[in-house]
């Protein structure tokens, strides 16, 4: 999450731009909105885009950013809390749990399988052999490792 990430426009002068999550809500795909939120936050935690200890936006702030009902955000946060992914601290604030990603391995595998399926299908359509894809995966893995190490040094 970066401070200036969102293309958010909002009339409220008290609107905080400090925490903007990259989440996209589509009421047109049938999946309940709270579940879209849960899935995307789970994905961001599993993929490391949301780090342990990081604070999630306040319910009201995220509701105004995404233009969805605050109760929907509250429900998503509750589900994530029950799943052990986030925790409430004291009275205010919801934070990504410190124990890293507590998602069950099966859950993580499910998310990953969907992404791999999409990748393999797309690679096939673009005429890449499986070896090319595997090589690319390794190459990108190395590049990300380097980038992450650099970020830690800074």
């Amino acid at each position, binding site marked *: 999450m970066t401070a200036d990430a969102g293309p958010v426009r909002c009339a409220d002068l008290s609107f905080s731009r400090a925490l903007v999550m990259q989440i996209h809500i589509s*009421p047109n795909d049938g999946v309940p909105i709270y579940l879209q939120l849960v899935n995307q936050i789970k994905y961001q935690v599993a993929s490391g885009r949301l780090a342990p200890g990081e604070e999630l936006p306040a319910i009201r702030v995220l509701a105004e950013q995404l233009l969805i009902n605050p109760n929907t955000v*509250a429900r998503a946060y509750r589900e994530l809390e029950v799943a052990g992914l986030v925790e409430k601290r004291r009275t205010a604030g919801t934070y990504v749990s410190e124990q890293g990603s507590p998602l069950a391995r099966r859950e993580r595998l499910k998310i990953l399988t969907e992404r791999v399926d999409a990748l393999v299908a797309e690679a096939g359509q673009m005429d890449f052999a499986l070896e090319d894809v595997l090589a690319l995966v390794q190459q990108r893995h190395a590049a990300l490792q380097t980038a992450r190490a650099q970020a830690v040094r800074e």
Partner: protein
Amino acid sequence: MLSPVPSSAPPVIELSRVTRRFGAKTALNEVSLVVPRGGVFGLIGGNGAGKTTLIKHVLGLLKAESGAVRVFGLDPVQNPVGVLGRIGYLSEDRDLPNWMRVGQFMRYTQAFFPHWDEAYAEELRQAFDLDAKAKIKTLSRGQRARMGLLAALAHRPELLILDEPSSGLDPVVRRDILGAIIRTIADEGRTVLFSSHLLDEVERVADYVAILHQGRMMLTAAMDEIKDRHRRVTLRFREPVEHPPALVGALSFEGHGAEWTYVCAGDSRQLQQAAQALGATVLGDDALTLDEIFVSRVLR
């Protein structure tokens, strides 16, 4: 903010078996509705479904022929002052005094509402980019909507009523309106009732939904419940069928040949079992959008 458990507080709006005719047309037919305190209530229905007529009864602008209307526990026709002073209202046609200037209209509206918040009104005027000196007559459609919204919001009403707030507006102004709805309920205990035929907007912000169709209340429930209770089950029968079998819980079906899609209300597992007993294979069991639920309810 609304608690997940329905509150025991008295409802903000209560209609019991309200009927209203205009000549030969029955605009509202024994309509009952309970709008609980706190949260957003979305009233949906096509053109001529009776949404505006219902709202006018809540405001006391129309008197029920039979049945009862209570707003904050009061009869809005008998107690217009006690009711209207606590409501912010944006009408569908945004009837604003064209000859006034923006600043003039703000002072004029302020006189009607003892709780008018001058600083908040000014904040909204600037956020909405409304020129205090501009004549209302010269405002664009979007700016008129924002002007009306300002007048509805600046006294921080307990109940905000928006009649088709988004109709005919560009996405930027629609964002302002949705944002205003969300900010209104984020403050404890305040309630929003809005009518719309833009169901994706209703799906985004509503806690409760009521479907009005040809003057009748078809369905009223919490949004989560409506979403949980409706599923689309896709089936493949062993052989092509001309008339697919009636299945338990099915609201509607469509398809051809061997593949048919059922919209199902209630537990879709029952429908699945019934279909499998007939030798059909279940190809999918998916959630529906509010739009699809609405269509299956009114085209039955």
